[in-house]
């Protein structure tokens, strides 16, 4: 590729992490060494026990060796714990750096956003201006439309003439009256007597009452 990226920079954070990692390496080395030592001592212990299978329990040398192995094992465990601690610390640091980037990104974005918003400051005025321009444009349109000479009068004359023509050519027909159907009127008739109807209706009720009584 043609581009030449700039040299990889080592920041102060990198140096700090490096220090951590170097101590981690030291512990790793120690763990490896101790591991080997324990393995070789176990081999020696085995050999010594095989040499003296009967009284090995009383053998001071063997006891001492076993103690040593236990002690080394203890150290190894401690080293392992410390190694894990350091590793955790390194990853925490790295994560913090990422977070820092995140915050920086936010800040930067905010800055750009406010800068962009500043650009919109004249928006109100701009919109007003546009509005007035549009109304001005409408005015111009009106003026231009009106300036065609006498167009309104001409229209009126046309209308008048058309009406006149209508009067001449189309004879005005009188609207035909629809023949009304003559119905016999109810006027003068006496009203129906509701009292008679009521008495008729009451009769069956009385019958039913009598039946229930019986």
């Amino acid at each position: 590729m043609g581009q030449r990226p700039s040299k990889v920079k080592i920041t102060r954070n990198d140096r700090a992490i490096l220090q951590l990692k170097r101590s981690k390496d030291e512990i790793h080395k120690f763990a490896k060494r101790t591991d080997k030592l324990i393995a070789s001592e176990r081999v020696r212990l085995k050999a010594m026990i095989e040499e003296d299978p009967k009284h090995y329990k009383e053998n001071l040398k063997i006891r001492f060796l076993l103690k040593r192995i236990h002690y080394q094992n203890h150290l190894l465990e401690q080293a392992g714990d410390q190694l894990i601690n350091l590793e955790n610390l390194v990853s925490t640091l790295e994560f913090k750096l990422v977070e820092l980037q995140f915050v920086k990104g936010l800040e930067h974005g905010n800055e750009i956003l406010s800068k962009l918003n500043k650009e919109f400051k004249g928006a109100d005025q701009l919109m007003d201006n546009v509005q007035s321009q549009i109304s001005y444009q409408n005015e111009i349109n009106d003026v231009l439309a009106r300036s065609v000479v006498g167009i309104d009068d001409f229209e009126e004359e046309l209308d008048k003439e058309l009406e006149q023509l209508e009067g001449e050519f189309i004879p005005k027909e009188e609207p035909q009256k629809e023949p009304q159907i003559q119905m016999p009127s109810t006027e003068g008739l006496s009203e129906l007597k509701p009292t008679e109807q009521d008495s008729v209706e009451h009769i069956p009720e009385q019958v039913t009452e009598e039946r229930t009584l019986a």
Partner: protein
Amino acid sequence: MSLPPIYSFPPLYTRQPNSIIRRQQISSWMDLILQYAKSHNAWSMSAEGSIVKEGTESVQESLFVNDEIQRSVPQIFINEIWSAMCQEGKAIGTDKGKRESPTYYVLWRTIDSWASLILQWCESAGKLQQVVTIYELSQGDESIGWEFHGMPEPLAAHCLKPLCQRHRATIVNDEYGKPVAVKVV
């Protein structure tokens, strides 16, 4: 470990006077050395042709001595072979890259090839954009299973140089100027 049949070919042990044949002879020796080192997983060999393993000072038999056919390469010719190896970038003197040194790193891959392998590891292990100690790179638990695991630290530092030249990495030195870490981008 079996070496190719040419290893049992007596004329191979005598410096050939004809320059064309000698070149062929030296290149055969180079192949033998690379193969020998790779099969023994040895990073460095002494100038006498025996494998040097870290920590152990045991003197092993030399590649340049073949007891089976009662032949051995004279030291002067051995030096010539090493010098040719260094010239072709197949070996580096452990003593600050000098041509003549008591031990040599044997590169059964080229420096560039090691560099790209390391870069691959950095990419796949998520080691980009952060400092990685050379110990972590070559001896740490995370590189187990990669071909460069167990590589001596000075050699590893050397293998990182092509990455620096490609502006992919920077080597960090400690207070004594010894390379201790690398940051790969």
